[in-house]
């Protein structure tokens, strides 16, 4: 029996076990940071000038003015809510077939690749980029915003649905198939009950995201509260802008709390 001498002092085990990997990673990070800061041009005199300007800017936010632009704010909010609801419904409806097609255990290879391609493209572009093109094609207003958010929802929801379907318990699916169920029955009784609870939660979460995003598609002309916010900034009516920001924060908070509550209740 060999005896090993234990070192007297104890050391915390490192997070990355291999010493070589640890040091190379550290070095790579250091080099990257040096390069990144080196190429970032910060005009410090401009920043110094900007700070009093920023203070004035922030002072302009107070007190938030809810009253003088209230009709416009209400209009923008309404548009945002319509966009949120319609785009979530359409997005989820469209993402179901695409998500089914993008699940490896369900779809044949060509369909899988095609659907994954759609998802990758719609996820790659930030909402604002999609919105620019939608506004160009479909004109200003909430319809462009609705299309933008629908496309974004497809990317988000379709991908998560596909991943969830890939993670299901194959035994249950096999059992239903063994009863002689048709393909649709199989989907309905073997796949859907397994993914539904999580998917409902994610749908609510997406509703919440869509509302938040509806605040920015307006900046490029997609309607909604973002358009009102952008106008307020452009006219330097900062007190109204502050009011709009506070309203957005308030609504997001309410939606988040209630959707968390609904999700707990569902499970």
């Amino acid at each position, binding site marked *: 029996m060999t005896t090993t001498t234990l070192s007297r002092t104890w050391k915390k085990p490192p997070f990355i076990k291999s010493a070589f990997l640890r040091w190379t990673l550290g070095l790579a990070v250091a080099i990257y940071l040096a390069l990144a800061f080196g190429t970032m041009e910060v005009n410090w005199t401009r920043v110094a000038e900007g700070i009093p300007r*920023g203070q004035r800017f922030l002072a302009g936010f107070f007190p938030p003015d809810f009253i003088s632009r209230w009709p416009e704010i209400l209009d923008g909010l309404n548009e945002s809510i319509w966009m949120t609801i319609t785009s979530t419904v359409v997005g989820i409806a469209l993402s179901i077939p695409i998500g089914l097609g993008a699940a490896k255990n369900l779809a044949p290879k060509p369909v899988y690749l095609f659907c994954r391609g759609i998802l990758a493209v719609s996820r*790659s572009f930030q909402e604002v980029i999609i919105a620019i093109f939608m506004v160009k094609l479909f004109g200003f207003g909430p*319809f462009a915003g609705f299309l933008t958010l629908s496309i974004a929802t497809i990317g988000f929801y379709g991908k998560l649905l596909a991943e969830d379907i890939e993670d299901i318990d194959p035994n249950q699916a096999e059992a239903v198939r063994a009863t002689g169920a048709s393909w649709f029955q199989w989907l309905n009784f073997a796949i859907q009950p397994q993914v539904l609870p999580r998917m409902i939660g994610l749908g609510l979460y997406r509703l919440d995201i869509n509302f938040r995003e509806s605040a920015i598609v307006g*900046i490029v002309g997609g309607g909604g509260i973002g358009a009102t916010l952008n106008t307020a900034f452009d006219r330097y009516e900062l007190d109204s802008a502050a009011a709009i920001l506070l309203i*957005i924060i308030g609504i*997001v908070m309410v939606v988040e709390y209630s959707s968390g509550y609904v999700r707990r209740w569902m499970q």
Partner: protein
Amino acid sequence: MAVVQKDDIKIWQRRERGKQFAIWAGYLTVTALFVYCFQLISEKTVWFFVLDAPRQAMDMASRMVPVKWSYMDVLWVAIWDTLNIATLGTVMAVILAIPTAYCAARNTTPSLYFVRPVALFIIVASRSINSLIWALILVAIVGPGVFAGVIAIGLRSIGFCAKLLYEAIEEIDENQVEAVTATGASNAQVTAYGIVPQVLPAFAGISVFRWDINIRESTVLGLVGAGGIGLQLNASITNLAWTQVSLILLVIIATVVVSEWVSAKIRHAII
């Protein structure tokens, strides 16, 4: 088990009658709400433009080819800037998110009634204001450029990182903390040896995940002047240089897909 009796034969049904009605009513409500909202949107829409869209789209697509590959020379710098905005912004967010999460987690917060609500408000405020809006404000304060973009991404990501981190802290195993406390460790030692090792993998995963999201977000900050590839995109669209636009879109797809792949690999290795 939901079974209906029909002429002495028991027929299996998937759901109880009441539940089936509730689901049906749910569908009805959502459909009605959808139709109502869509009608309101459609009143504000100029349908002539919408009907014209396919022709416009074909026109735009035809202007986008052939892709102007030579424009790539200009884009390398923009890609580098975009990566920097995302990475440095994430670093800043992570550094600021740690104390916020510490104050927001129910089991570590110094004060449940005063500090915690403040931390939660910071989290919600940062999450609900989009990085583009932050950038809009910051460009006015620190001037256009990468620096404004970094701060915008950073401020926007604090909420996301802090929220996931404080949830991870709340889910830790209290026994380990108790064991460390029982050795007579100070408060800081308890944090360092009882809490940090438990949340470190989650923390690394969250940072990488947010970095991946930030790459996508930083592609648009240029639209309001905060640097990155969005600057080139905006300039090309305004100049109607559609062959450059198509190249930029391809570059964005490639960057995002690669970063998503990298982040998935790293997260897979950590967890």
